[in-house]
Structure formats: C-alpha cells, structure tokens
C-alpha cells in the first residue's frame, strides 16, 4: 500500500508558483513577459477598437464610414445575404438557412460517441444530407425547384463539404482495405490509384474533373459540372483518408486478427467487428484532421468557377460604394471559416488527448 502511495506523481505546484516559474524565472524572462503582455494588450486594444468601438454597424450609416477609424460593418449588414446565400432566390433564403442549420447539426451530432456505429452514423448522415438536399433543391413538398447553378455562398460550401465526406468516407474504407489486401493484384492496383491521386495538387484534379470528363466519360455518366467536381474532390479526399485508416489498421496487433481467425470468423466479420473499429479508434485524430483540411480546401472550387462563399464575398464588395471595405468582408468570411475549422480541430485535439489517457 505504501509503495502505491509513493508512486503517485508529486503534487502539482500551486498556480502562483507555476506562474512565477513560467513568467519571472530570470531577469530576461521578466523583460520578455512584460514586453509580451504589453504587445498582447496593444493588439487586443487595437482589435477591439477597430471592430467594436470605432466601427459603424448599420447599412444606413455607410456615409459615416469614410470618417470612421474602425471597421465599416455596414457592408456586412447590407450584403450578408449575398455572402451567405449567393444567387439563391431572395424569398427562399429561409430554406438555405434551415438547410445549413440541419447540416451543421448533423456534423455536430456525429461528434458524439453515441452515434459512433456504422448504422447510426450512416442513418444520421443520410437523413441530414437528404433533408439538406430537399430543402435546397426543392421541387417537392410544395417547395419551388432551384437548380444547383443558383446555389451559392455558405450553403454551397457546406454542400460540397458534406457530399465529399459522404462519398469519400466509404470509398476511403474500401481503398484502405484494398491496399491492405492479401491479394497482390488488388493491393497493387489500389496502391497505384492512391499514390497517383495523392501526388497531384487538388486543383489539377478538380480541373480535370471539370474539363476532362466530358471527353472521357460517355454522356449518360457525366452529370452536372458541380457533381463531377464533387466526385473528383471525393476521390482525392478518399485517397488521403485511406492512408490515415491504413495507418490505423497497421497499428492493430496481429494477435487481434488471429484471434478472430481461431474463432472461425470470416473476412467480413473480422473486418467489421475487429479491424475497422480498432483502426478508427487508432487514427481518429488524423481522420478528423483530414476533415479539417477538406473544409478549408472547399474554398479551392472557386477557381473552377463555383459561387461558394469566397466568390460570393468577392461579389459582395465588388460593387460601387462597398469596394473600399474588402477587409471587413474578408474578416467576416475568415471568421466563418475559423469558427468551423477551429472547433473541428479543437475537437480532434480533444479526441487525441482522450485516447492518450485511455491507453494509459
């Protein structure tokens, strides 16, 4: 018993003591701390002053913007609908809003462990995505039909992200299993496929999907340019995600699979009951990280000619009186991205921490 107590880690030093050690350990440290504190306060003051105190908020007050030192949020007040919804018909904006809320709720819900089984997650995403698509597309339940060409802004960004995840995730599992397969032909072919797509910049793949597929695929397989680009994006995503899953698969001790074999489980039982659950557990942080990267990369579709949030932001300040206020528009879009990406990456860090504790 006594030995057990002695093995406990030493008590944590008090907060004040840690602060003292971290900030004022030596004269040089004191100077650095003071300078940093001053710099931080200065930055904070400047940002608050620019964004809140000296800023103009209402669209009617745009005339005051010239004289103001701070941000001119009037541009957001006046043009936020373009940034968020693009060319979506004005009176249907509530649908776009609702669709975005549903999709974000789906993404948030899939972060809870209760949903972490293939059936629950699959059902959740199919329902969430289905509701999103019906709300956006319309044409049924008394909603007027709106074709994807008129989708835009944040809703398009979320649509691309969600559909890339929805197509890419199952594909990535197939690719990861294929590359780990004992059949040499299967392993070689999937390996070649993955390495080929991973060696190219995303933009070239999206570009190829937009301009090459009309040549390569027969007419009945082509579909809308938006869908082609999404499929290209999803393949790119799946190739990266497959490598993350493969890393998770390789980290499983071989005894696990052998135990399954001795119990007489067949390949699919071993894959779905033994290998994949553990692989996901092993590589969950890097899988979440891949989603984070993918959300940021959706902004690239603007180059192949889609009106997602970056392009719609560009349009929002592009006219007449708003041109000087590009900073506010970009800050607004940047904050939207930041909110998504930062919370996702924090979630990934939380998972990583939790697993480290779990493994002791």
């Amino acid at each position, binding site marked *: 018993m006594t030995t057990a107590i002695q093995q406990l880690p030493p008590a944590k030093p008090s907060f004040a003591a840690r602060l003292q050690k971290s900030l004022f350990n030596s004269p040089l440290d004191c100077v650095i701390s003071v300078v940093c504190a001053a710099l931080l306060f200065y930055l904070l003051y400047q940002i608050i002053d620019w964004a809140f105190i000296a800023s103009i908020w209402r669209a009617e007050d745009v005339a005051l913007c010239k004289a103001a030192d701070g941000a001119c949020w009037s541009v957001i007040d006046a043009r936020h609908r373009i940034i968020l919804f693009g060319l979506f018909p004005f009176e249907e904006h509530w649908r776009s809003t609702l669709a975005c809320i549903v999709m974000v709720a789906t993404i948030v819900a899939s972060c809870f462990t209760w949903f972490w089984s293939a059936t629950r997650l699959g059902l959740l995403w199919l329902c969430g995505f289905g509701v999103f698509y019906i709300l956006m597309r319309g044409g049924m339940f008394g909603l007027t039909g709106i074709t994807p060409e008129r989708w835009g802004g944040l809703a398009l960004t979320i649509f691309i992200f969600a559909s890339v995840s929805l197509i890419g995730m199952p594909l990535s599992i197939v690719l990861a299993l294929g590359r780990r397969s004992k059949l040499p032909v299967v392993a070689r072919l999937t390996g070649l496929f993955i390495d080929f797509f991973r060696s190219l910049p995303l933009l070239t793949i999206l570009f190829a999907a937009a301009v090459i597929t009309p040549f390569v695929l027969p007419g009945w397989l082509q579909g809308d340019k938006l869908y082609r680009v999404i499929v290209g994006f999803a393949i790119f995503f799946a190739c990266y995600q497959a490598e993350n899953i493969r890393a998770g698969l390789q980290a499983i001790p071989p005894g696990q699979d052998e135990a399954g074999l001795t119990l007489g489980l067949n390949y699919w039982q071993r894959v779905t009951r033994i290998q994949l659950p553990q692989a996901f557990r092993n590589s969950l942080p890097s899988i979440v990280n891949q989603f984070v990267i993918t959300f940021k990369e959706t*902004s690239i579709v603007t180059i192949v000619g889609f009106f997602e949030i970056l392009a719609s932001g560009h349009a929002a300040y592009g006219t007449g009186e708003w041109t000087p206020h*590009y900073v506010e528009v970009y800050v607004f879009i940047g904050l939207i991205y930041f909110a998504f990406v930062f919370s996702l990456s924090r979630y990934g860090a939380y998972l990583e921490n939790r697993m480290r504790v779990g493994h002791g």
Partner: protein
Amino acid sequence: MSSLLRNRKIREIVLQALLVSIVAVVLIGMVVNTRAALDAQSLTTGFGFLERSTGWDFSFSVLPYSISDSYTKTLTIGILNTLLLGFLGISLATIIGIVIGLIRTSGNYLFSLLGTIYVEVFRNVPLILQAVFWYSVVAHLPRPKSAIEIGDLAFITGRGIYFPVFNIALWSVAMMLVLFIGWLLVLGHFKRTLASGRYHSVRKIGWCLLPLLCLALAWFARIPDTPLLDVPALKGLNFKGGMRMPPELTALVIAIALYGGAYIGEVVRAGLMSVPRGQIEAGFVTGLSPYHIFSRIRLPLAVRAVLPSLTNQYVQLMKATTIGLVVGFSDFFMIVSTSINQSGQTLELLAILMGGFLLINLTIAFVMNAINRRIAIVGYEVKS
C-alpha cells in the same frame, strides 16, 4: 463449379482476374470514348502544338518573352514562375516556422501564447482566402506618385514593389549560382577527405575568394553603357528602371509564407520537444552554455527528427502554389489553363500539368530524403 469456388486459391485468382478485367474494360472504355469525343469535335491529338507560337500575353515572367514564343517556352516559363513562387514562399515560411517553433517552446507562458495565437489564426483560415486578402491589401497600397520609399532605393506601390538591380547579363547570375553550389559540394568533399585543420583553412580561403570571384564575374558581364546599379526612379505616372515585383507575386508570397509558417512552426515545435530531456541535461552537466546546448544539441537533433515531416510540408506547400490563378499570377497552372483555352489541346496539356507537378514534388522529396540520409546519425534513432 461450386466446389471449385469453395477452394480459396481458385477463388482468389478468379476474384483478381475479375478485378483486372473490370479495370481494363473501364480504361479501354475511356480511351474509346475519348477517341469518339475527339473525332466528334474534330480535334487533333499529339504534342505538335508545342512548337506553335502562343500569340497571347500573361502577367509575369522570370525570363524575357514575347507573344510569338512557342508553347514549350511559355510552359517552361510557367514552371519557372511556380518554382520562384515556391522558393520564395517556402524559404520565408521556413524562417517564420523556426521562429514560431522557438517561441512556442520558449517556456515563457505569455511568449508562447503569442506563438499559439499566430498559429491558430493563420492555420485555420484557407490559404486561398489569405491570398485574396493580401492581394487586396497589396493592390490598395499607394499609387506610384505617393509611393512608400525605402531610402530612395526601393519603392512600395500598389503597382508592385520596385527595387534596384545590377545591370548584368543573366548568364553570369546563373554562373554565380553554379559556382556557389559547386563550392558547397567541393566543401562537403573536403570535409570528408582533408584533416580538420587543413579543412578549416581551405574553407576560410574559399569563402573569401568566392565573393571576389562573383564581383569579377559581375564586372565582366555588365551590360555596356549602363550604370552598374539600376535604381528605379519615378518618370511620369510610373517607375522606370530597377526590378518590379508584381502585387500578385507579393500577395502570394506573403500568404504562403504566413500560412506555411504556421504549419512549419508546429513541425519545428514537435521536433524540439522530441529531443530527450537527458540530452539537454547531459549538456548542462558538461557545462555547456544555454546557447551551445541549443545550437549543438537541441537544434541538430530536432532537425533530424523533423526532416521527414518537413519534406511533407514542403511538398504540400508546393502543391498549394497552384492557387496563383485567383489573383492572376501566371504560375504553371494558370499558363496551362490559358493554353487549354487557347489551343484546345486539353488532354495533352493536362498530362503536362500533372507530369510537371509530379516532377517537382518527386525532386523535392528526393533532395530532402538525400539530406535526411546524409545527416542521419548512425545508430541514433530520434522518436518523432
């Protein structure tokens, strides 16, 4: 038949044969379809168009060019532009990354907080958004008439940054570069073959001779009837003389440097943290100063730990340079997409695009892996 299928070996062979034939059918189908589509639009295939002159202009080039140049030359310029952008962006990103990595491992809470804020802000916003933001900022800089001056030599304007250059021929610059790299290689050879004392004296002499040699070269190669230093000066509405760094390039370099710096900062931090405490404590015990502990123990070990992930970052950043198109910088991707619009040779040009990036990325990976092998400490494995 069913008994044959129950045999695992046979089943596996059948399965693989099936997969191969499906892949083959899909590929053949694609080729046939492409042929048909090309015939329908009566397009000719082949790389003959590379010899034709382009007849269109683009915004920026590292080499002198004209619109009558061939596609081959234009595409080469595109690759060089991309390489220039990548080189500038990645070098700056590495410097920023090292500084941020050091700040974040400094142990001073407030100091590392500054580093953390930097990393979180620049890593969590898409690169492309940062690029258009910086482009807007750079393009809104003052007009040439009210340029920001730096000691009457360089001028920062909304039309670009103007800075002085030497009036020397291009070939001599290339020769200087060759000289420099050659010298580094020779030095590496001497380090292995010469005794330590002689090596140091040779190194000293070499480093003194090299700048002299470059100066002599510059003197020989200077363009006649011009001053050696070409300083930009305001003439009318714009600057004449000197070199101009266009706002597109400036914005992209800033964006890639800040974005990449955040990622590389994290890599460097991980490397510095991976150095075992015992190594540092051993340094203290032997009485090394904090500076020497850093420069002789922590940094060398950290560099070895991070090189593979740094290589990865470099390749990623090089791929990220393709966003030049959004601000109108004529990088490789933009040149290729303009060529596709102008010549209609979609398939060939896309193959060139993909091949070009494959080549660039493989080169980066090859060089970095060579460095990695070279500096690896035999028998010492750093956990990263």
